[in-house]
C-alpha cells in the first residue's frame, strides 16, 4: 500500500465480499505440480546418464545410487535405485524394495515388467512415470526412483522416512480442558489430525505446490457443503497466483495472501490446534496448512475472533463471558494505558482524586524528566528486555528477568529516573499485551502504544480520541478475505451484535455466522432434546 492509498482509498474488487446466492463449486481445478522437463527415452544407459545429470550426481553428496540386477522374464536386467539419504526409511528400502527385487525376483518368477509393480514391490504408493521433472520432485519428497533396463519407464516408490518432531502439546495455545495435541511440521500428519476430528467425506483437502524452487506442499482445507464456494475460489486464486521461488512457513504465506500489509491488524488467525482448525472448518471457514509449519491459517477472521482464546469453547458460558471481558480490558490497557497516563499527568490532572494526585506528585517530584521522556525510557527498556528474553538461552532467562524486572526497575526508581507509579502503568500495559490471545494482535498493541503515548503527550485526551478515531477508521476498512474485520458489529449483520457482546450458551448457538456466507446456515436446532417434553 502506498502512502497515498491511506488517503485515497477505494475498495478493490477482491475486498468486496458480495453476499449473493451460493453457487456450485467451480470445476475441479487440480494444479499440476512440476510439469515439463525432458521425458525418459527408454534406453537404460541414456536415461541413467540423463537422470544422473538431472540430480547432479557428482555434486550431491547425499544422493545414493544402488545398482543391482533384477530377474525379469527369465533374464537379468540392470537396475538402479536412487534415493536421498535421510529422506527415506532405510529399513523400508532394504526390506520392501531391494530385497524383493534382488532376492524375490529370483524365487518368485517375475514374468513381465508389470509384475515388478504388481507382485514384487509391496509398497502402498508406487507409480510409474517417464517425466524427469516428476521424478526429481518425488525423490526430493522421500521416494526411491527405480530405473530398470528394458522397462522404458521409471518407477517411483514412496519410502518417506525422514526424522521429524512428533505430535506434541501446543506451545502457544495451551488449554486446561480440551484436547492437547498440536500440528507438527508434517503436512500429512496435520491434515490427518484435522480429518480425524471432522470424520466426514465432505472435508476437502486441496493440494498445491507453492514455490518454483522449493515446491512446498500447501493444503487448502474446507468442508464442501458448508464453506462458501466464493471463499474457496478466492483462497485458491490467491494461492495459485503466487509467483515465488520458495515458501517455508504459513507465516510467510499469510503475508503473501493478506489484503493490506501496512495495517497493524493481523488479517488471518493462526492456530496450532487441530481442534480449533476443525471447528473453524465446520463453521464455514477455510484452513490453509503449509508443510514445514506447525501453524494453520484460518480465513476469514474478525477482530472478535482474534480476541478469542482456544479455551473459550471448552469453558462454561458465565466463565467465558467474564474472561472475555477481562481480555478486552487487558488489550485496551495494553494499547491505551500509558497514553492515558501521559495525557492525565500532562493535561487532565483534575480527573484524579486529590489523594492520588498528591501521591503522584510526591512520586514525580524527584524525577528530572518530563513524563513523556520517563515513559519512553521505561517502554524502550521493557521492549529491549522482552526482545533479549526471546534470545537468551533458557538457563540465563531467570537471570535476565531478575536483572530486568527487579534490579533495573528498583534502581530506576531509587535513582529518581522514573516514578514508581509509572512502573506500575508500564507493567500493566506489558502484561496486558501478553493477555491478548493473538500474538500478532499483542504486537500490534505494543507498536501502537507508542503512537498513543505521543498523542497523549501532545494533545491529551483530545489527541488520544483523534488517534483512536483514525485507528478505528483504518481498522474497520481492513478486510480478511473480503470480510470486514469488525463484522458483525461494524458493519452490523443480523443477530451478530448480541452474540459478540455476550457469548451465548452452547445449545443456543444454532446458526453459523452469516458473514462467512455458509452454505449450511443452521448448525443445530433445539440442541438439547431432553429439554423437550415430548422426548
Amino acid at each position, binding site marked *: 500500500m502506498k502512502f497515498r492509498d491511506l488517503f485515497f482509498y477505494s475498495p478493490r474488487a477482491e475486498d468486496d465480499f458480495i453476499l449473493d446466492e451460493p453457487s456450485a463449486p467451480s470445476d475441479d481445478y487440480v494444479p499440476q505440480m512440476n510439469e515439463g522437463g525432458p521425458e525418459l527415452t527408454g534406453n537404460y544407459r541414456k536415461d541413467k546418464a540423463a537422470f544422473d545429470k538431472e540430480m547432479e550426481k557428482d555434486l550431491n553428496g547425499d544422493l545414493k545410487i544402488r545398482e543391482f540386477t533384477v530377474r525379469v522374464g527369465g533374464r537379468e536386467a540392470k537396475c538402479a535405485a536412487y534415493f536421498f539419504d535421510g529422506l527415506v526409511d532405510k529399513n523400508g528400502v532394504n526390506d520392501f524394495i531391494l530385497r524383493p527385487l534382488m532376492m524375490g525376483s529370483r524365487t518368485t518368477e517375475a514374468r513381465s515388467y508389470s509384475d515388478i509393480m504388481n507382485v514384487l514391490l509391496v509398497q502402498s504408493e508406487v507409480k510409474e512415470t517417464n517425466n524427469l521433472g516428476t521424478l526429481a520432485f518425488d525423490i526430493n519428497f522421500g521416494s526411491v526412483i527405480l530405473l530398470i533396463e528394458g522397462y522404458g519407464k521409471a518407477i517411483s516408490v514412496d519410502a518417506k522416512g525422514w526424522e521429524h518432531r512428533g505430535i506434541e502439546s501446543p506451545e502457544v495455545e495451551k488449554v486446561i480442558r480440551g484436547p492437547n495435541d498440536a500440528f507438527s511440521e508434517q503436512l500429512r500428519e496435520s491434515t490427518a489430525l484435522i480429518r480425524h476430528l471432522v470424520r466426514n467425506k465432505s472435508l476437502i483437502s486441496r493440494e498445491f505446490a507453492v514455490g518454483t524452487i522449493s515446491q512446498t506442499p500447501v493444503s487448502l482445507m474446507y468442508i464442501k457443503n458448508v464453506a462458501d464456494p466464493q471463499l474457496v475460489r478466492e483462497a485458491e486464486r490467491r494461492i495459485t497466483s503466487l509467483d515465488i521461488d520458495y515458501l517455508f512457513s504459513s507465516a510467510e504465506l499469510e503475508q503473501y495472501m493478506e489484503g493490506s500489509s501496512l495495517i497493524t491488524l493481523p488479517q488471518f488467525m493462526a492456530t496450532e490446534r487441530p481442534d480449533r482448525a476443525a471447528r473453524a472448518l465446520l463453521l464455514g471457514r477455510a484452513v490453509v496448512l503449509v508443510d514445514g509449519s506447525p501453524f494453520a491459517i484460518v480465513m476469514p477472521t474478525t477482530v472478535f475472533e482474534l480476541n478469542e482464546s482456544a479455551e473459550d469453547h471448552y469453558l462454561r458460558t458465565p466463565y467465558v463471558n467474564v474472561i472475555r471481558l477481562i481480555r478486552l480490558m487487558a488489550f485496551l490497557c495494553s494499547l491505551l494505558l500509558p497514553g492515558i497516563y501521559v495525557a492525565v499527568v500532562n493535561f487532565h*490532572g483534575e480527573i484524579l482524586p*486529590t*489523594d492520588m494526585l498528591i*501521591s503522584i*506528585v510526591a512520586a514525580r517530584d524527584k524525577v528530572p524528566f518530563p513524563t513523556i521522556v520517563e515513559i519512553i525510557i521505561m517502554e524502550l527498556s521493557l521492549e529491549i528486555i522482552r526482545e533479549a528474553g526471546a534470545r537468551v538461552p533458557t538457563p540465563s532467562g531467570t537471570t535476565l528477568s531478575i536483572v530486568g524486572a527487579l534490579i533495573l526497575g528498583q534502581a530506576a526508581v531509587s535513582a529518581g529516573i522514573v*516514578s*514508581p507509579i509509572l512502573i506500575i502503568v508500564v507493567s500493566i500495559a506489558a502484561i496486558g499485551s501478553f493477555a491478548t490471545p493473538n500474538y500478532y494482535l499483542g504486537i500490534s498493541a505494543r507498536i501502537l502504544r507508542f503512537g498513543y503515548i505521543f498523542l497523549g503527550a501532545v*494533545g491529551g485526551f483530545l489527541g488520544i480520541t483523534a488517534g483512536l478515531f483514525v485507528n478505528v477508521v483504518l481498522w474497520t476498512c481492513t478486510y480478511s478475505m473480503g470480510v470486514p474485520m469488525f463484522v458483525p458489529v461494524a458493519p452490523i449483520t443480523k443477530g451478530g451484535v448480541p452474540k459478540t457482546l455476550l457469548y451465548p450458551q452452547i445449545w443456543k448457538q444454532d446458526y453459523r455466522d452469516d458473514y462467512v456466507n455458509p452454505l449450511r446456515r443452521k448448525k443445530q436446532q433445539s440442541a438439547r432434546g431432553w429439554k423437550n417434553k415430548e422426548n
Partner: protein
Amino acid sequence: MRLRKALAVVLLAAALGGCANSAEVNDKAYVIALGVDKGSNGLLKVTFMFAYPSGGGEEAGGEKIDEKDIVTVEAPSIYSAMRLLDTFKSKRIDTNHTKLVAFSQKLAESRGVFSQLTDLVNTRGFRPSIYVCVTQESPSKLFNSMEPKQDVFIEKFIEHLFSKIADSGTSRAYLYNNYFSAVEEAGSYIIPLVGVTDKENAGGAAAAPYQKPDDFTLNYTADQVPLHGDSVAALCGYAVFVDNKMVGSLGMMEGTVVKMLEKNRQVGQFCVLVPGKNTYANVNLQLTNAPIIRVKTGDAPEISLDISMWGEFTGIGGAFKNSGDYAEFVDYLNGAFSEKILELLEKTRTEYGADIFGFGDKAKINFLRYPEWEAYNWKEKYKNARFSVKVEVDMNDYGELRFSQKN
C-alpha cells in the same frame, strides 16, 4: 512532494505546539481550600490553603500528615488574588482540586457573597460541586485550626467534615445549589456555618452553660459548641442570607429541621427528656418519605407541611412502665416536633421576612406560565404566609418494649 513536506512540517509544528499547554502534575500547586474575607479599603482578603506532599515517595503509606501551606493576599477579586499569588509562588496555581470555599461572616454580612458565588460557578477551575461555608472567624483562622487526627490528608478531612451534611441529602453545602437559590429565590438561602473555638477556650468559657440535655432545647450556635477535644472547627447550623446578605444564623436544632425539609432520610439521634419522668429516652429518627409540602397561593399563602417519621428507641433508660406511657411519649414527640418546626418557620418569616427554605418551589405548581408566577411576587406574599405543620412519628417497638399486661 515539496508541498507534502511543507504540510508535514506545519502539522508537526502545530502538534508540538500543543505541548505548550501541558503542565506536569508536579509543576502545579493545588489549592485545597479558598477563603474570602473582608479586607481593608474595600479589598478582599483571599486565603489559599495549598496541599503539598511531605516526604515524597519513601514515606508513601506512612502516617505523616500533609503539611499545610496557607497564604493570604489582599486583592480586589479572587482572580486578581490568584494572579498576585502567581508572582511569588514557584508553581502554577491549580484550582481544580479545591474542596471548600469559606466566606467570612464579616464579608457575608457587609457585602454578601453573591458576586463571589457567580464568579466561582462561572470559572473553569472551580467545579460547581465544591463545598461552601460561612465561617464566623476569618478563613485563615479556620484553616489553621483544621488539624485532622484521623485523616491522613487534609483534603480528606474537609471532605469528611462536609460530606456529613452533604452526602446525607442536604444540598445546601454545594456551591451550585447556593448559586441556584441565589438567582432563583431572590437571594434568600442558607449556607452551612462553621464556627472556630479557640483552643484555649475549648469546652470552657465560650461554651454555653450546661442546661438540661434535651435535644429540643439544645440549640447551640456554632461558637457555643462545648468542645472537649483537639478539633476546634465545628460545623454547626446555617448562615441565613436574605437579599444576598447574611442576616442571621440558625442553630443546631434548627439545622435538624432544615434536614427534615431537605428530604434527608436520616434525621438523627435525639435524647429526649420524657415528660413527667426524670429520665431520658434515646430515639433515632428517619423520614419515612419526603415531607409533603403543599402551598396554597393567595394573598396570604397557606403552607402546610406533613412530615411522617419512623423511629426506633436506642435506649429508654427505664422510662416506660406500660404501653400507655409509650403512647403518651409518642404523642409528646409529635407535638414537640410540630411545635419546634412551626416555631422555626414563624421565626424565620417574621425575623427575616424571606423564604429561606425554598417553599417558593412548591408554590410554582399553582401556576401554568412563568410570567404569571413572576407577577404573583412570591417574595412579598411570603411575608403574610400561614403555616400548618403535622408531624407523625411511628415508633418501632422492639423486644424491650413488649410490656406485660400486668405492669
